[in-house]
């Protein structure tokens, strides 16, 4: 009886330990590993001290394997980050070169830095989301959310640079909400749906509260632009909700 209880406790702790593996490895092998551990506990269940030492050695061996797998996984993430950084640099060259030929293009160093950060963050979100892109609704929602975020960030920076109204940088708080929400949700569909709805709400509030200070025709175009981005964010949130109902985590 006591041995069974100890065995079940050891198995529960082993199941917790397996959670430390990187997700791809965990999905592939954790069930088999837990089954093997259960079989070993059953085999040595008659000798509690022997069971204890066997379990301890397996915990240690598995922990070393976990560190090794995570190190390998991290290096893959490092390669992804480098690829995204280089890709963002290539895209960033376009406005950098174009600004030399277009007369009214007056971005300062800060503007170019912000554009690069925006491109890099967009690339990282796409790279991380690509691993989870199983259901069509998740893919489409990701693309729509990224396009809306990029459009909002880009237009905000262009307008701030051109108009000299730094308060328009408040629109970037929508992207901050998105970034925090995506991290908290760990890119899972249910959390992302809430995040996208929150972004649409924040943008709507800022659009109403912040005076545009622009002439009427420009203000109308800005309102249409805001409406389009809000619609994109809301549609993206609905698609993530659809993905979450389809069981995509």
């Amino acid at each position: 009886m006591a041995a069974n209880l100890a065995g079940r406790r050891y198995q529960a702790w082993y199941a917790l330990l397996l959670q430390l593996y990187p997700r791809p490895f965990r999905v592939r092998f954790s069930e088999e590993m837990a089954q093997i551990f259960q079989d070993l506990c059953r085999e040595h269940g008659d000798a509690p001290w022997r069971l204890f030492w066997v379990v301890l050695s397996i915990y240690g061996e598995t922990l070393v394997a976990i560190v090794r797998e995570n190190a390998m996984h991290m290096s893959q993430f490092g390669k992804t980050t480098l690829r995204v950084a280089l890709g963002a640099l290539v895209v960033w060259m376009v406005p950098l070169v174009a600004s030399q030929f277009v007369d009214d293009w007056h971005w300062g160093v800060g503007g170019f830095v912000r554009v690069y950060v925006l491109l890099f963050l967009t690339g990282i979100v796409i790279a991380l989301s690509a691993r989870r892109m199983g259901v069509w609704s998740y893919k489409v929602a990701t693309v729509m959310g990224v396009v809306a975020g990029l459009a909002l960030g880009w237009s905000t920076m262009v307008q701030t640079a051109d108009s000299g109204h730094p308060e328009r940088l408040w629109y970037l708080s929508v992207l901050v909400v998105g970034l925090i929400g995506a991290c908290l949700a760990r890119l899972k569909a249910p959390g992302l749906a809430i995040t996208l709805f929150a972004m649409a709400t924040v943008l709507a509030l800022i659009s109403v509260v912040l005076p545009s200070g622009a002439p009427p025709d420009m203000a109308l175009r800005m309102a249409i632009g805001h409406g389009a981005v809000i619609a994109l964010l809301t549609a993206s949130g609905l698609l993530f909700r659809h993905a979450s109902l389809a069981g995509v985590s």
Partner: protein
Amino acid sequence: MKQVEADSQGKVKMGPGTLYGSMGRIMDAGLIRESDKRVDPDMDDERRIYYRLTSLGREALEAELKRYRGVVSVAEGRLAYGR
């Protein structure tokens, strides 16, 4: 795990972490894959998952065995020369 320990006369012991870490890498390299074929009905268990060598895996194993035989042959030659 038990087969490895038995084949090495107890010299090599591996736990699930080492076994599945290696299996993951071998599968990613395309050297083994899951098999539907049940080997021995007496030993079978519905929980068992069977793996088999791919043709690439067979080639890699043969190349590795050939390398081992070459190394052993050189070592035996040196040993004979030393006598």
